[in-house]
């Protein structure tokens, strides 16, 4: 009972658990657990035969965090930055440390731009983006998807109704704003005799 010094009793003793659960207590002693202690020196270096690794050749300019002293000796080469998204990514790496929210938010913005860029570009190729096959929704029919959606208290069902609003909402809002602005600009230029000119005349 919590309000006294005693621990709440367990329903099963260690012996009962040992009998019921295969391997119970095999690592009871922390010494049998790997990575204990935390910062133990690794004698075998797991097979490394260098003090500092040889450097991977840098083809093109590889972006890196400004918190690093230099380009790490090994790095990935998947998808070098290009296009407008590439400009945003390079800017983010050049200017902001990992401690700055701007760094990560710029990268996330670049990801969205990257997706639009590729989506647009895909229509110029023989293999345009296909929202049906690429989202995998066909599995709803081929792999018991629909039956596992129906009639269960699924946590994701409750916001499925809201998702279209949340996802489409900002787009509708931005679209409305753009439409409004464009209309205002057009009206201004269509008006017979610009207001500015008229004012100048009257003054």
């Amino acid at each position, binding site marked *: *009972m919590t309000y006294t010094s005693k621990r*709440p009793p*367990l329903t099963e003793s260690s012996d009962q658990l040992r009998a019921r*659960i*295969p*391997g*119970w*207590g*095999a690592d*009871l002693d922390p010494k049998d*657990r*790997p*990575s204990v202690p*935390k*910062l*133990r020196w*690794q004698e075998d*270096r*797991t*097979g*490394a*035969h*260098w003090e500092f*690794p*040889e450097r*991977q*050749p840098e083809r093109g300019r590889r*972006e890196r965090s400004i*918190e690093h002293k230099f380009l*790490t000796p*090994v*790095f*990935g080469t*998947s998808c070098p930055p290009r296009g407008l*998204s590439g400009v945003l990514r390079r800017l983010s790496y050049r200017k902001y440390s*990992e401690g700055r*929210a701007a760094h*990560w938010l710029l*990268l*996330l913005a670049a*990801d969205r731009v*990257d*997706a639009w860029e*590729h989506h647009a570009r895909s229509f110029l190729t023989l293999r345009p983006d*296909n929202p049906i*096959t*690429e*989202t*995998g*929704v*066909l*599995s*709803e029919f*081929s*792999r*018991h998807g629909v039956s*596992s959606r129906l009639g269960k208290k699924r*946590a994701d069902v409750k916001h499925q109704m809201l998702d279209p609003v*949340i996802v489409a909402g*900002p787009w509708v809002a931005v679209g409305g704003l753009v439409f409004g602005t464009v209309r205002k600009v057009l009206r201004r230029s269509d008006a017979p005799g610009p207001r500015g000119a008229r004012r100048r005349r009257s003054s």
Partner: protein
Amino acid sequence: MVYRGPYKVRAEEKDIPAIEHPNDAIVRVALAAICGSDLHLYHGMMPDTRVGMTFGHEFVGVVEDVGPDVRNLERGDRVMVPFNIFCGTCWYCARGLYSNCHNVNPNATAVGGIYGYSNTTGGYDGGQAEYVRVPFADVGPSVIPDWMDDEDAVLLTDALATGYFGAQLGDIVEGDVVVVFGAGPVGLYAAKSAWLMGAGRVIVIDHLEYRLAKARTFAHAETYNFTEYDDIVVHLKKITDHLGADVAIDAVGAEADGNLIQHVTSAKLKLQGGSPVALNWAIDSVRKGATISVMGAYGPIFSAVKFGDAFNKGLTLRMNQCPVKRQWPRLFEHVRNGYLKPSDIVTHRIPLEHIAEGYHIFSAKLDGCIKPLIVASSS
């Protein structure tokens, strides 16, 4: 597979990866897995995830080619590759923190290198492919023991090792009440591992009945579906005699699906690096002075964690990405003894060409999906 933007992937022909460093190997993938943390990428929540990237950090395969400086591997070796890319000799590797290696990720200093996990972790292509480049081939991969099959091995490259590591970070002592948030693969393995370390009671919390059923049979756990309770924290207090658990393990990470506000600000508007619902439940539901272990994946962006409660309760928070290779020798023993059977949780085997369906089923949690494996087209 390649990423085409949020919620979109497809199978696509790419160049076979080349050796770019003398200690690289090229591995022909036999089996890969989709991981819960791949969903952060799939949903477009991980910064610097570029269109055209190949995901996949859990894979096994056969060595196809080795760089001139590789000594420990040969063509034809059947290997398992830990999800961490690491050099073996930097300040961190020398002390066993393989997941925190400083020599493999130019894009960030706060996180190490991971296969197929966006440019934030180094810009490496992953193993949901026919071929993959494996850097530091002398250090990362291990030859799969003869007695172990590929399906068990692939689960040791992340999920099982991470689950076990999560239990370990909980510093469990005999008789501890351990609560695990999340009954995905990592949560199931964490629950199972808690018993090996002498837990007196293991409780698993999730919202999907089929996963809770697995937690009962596979991990011998006591389970609760949080959607059936007004307040799961109060319920956990009640069933622990109002003390709370001794150890909580967050095996959910940043995409917890608990409440609508969190869902909107993180999953939808990307204003948070992820919603730490599970972590906050962990903080609230443990006793004072408890330990909380976190190895569900969290991204670099701000998350609204209830730090004040953690402070006032005197909690110990322990967390890291799992240094997979450090876990292997002991885990091999447990698998061999039959204490752990990793492949028991595999529910789907999906050909690489059907990768989009695989992601959708796993992401939407359809068809009783717990762990989907991706079978390479060539095999």
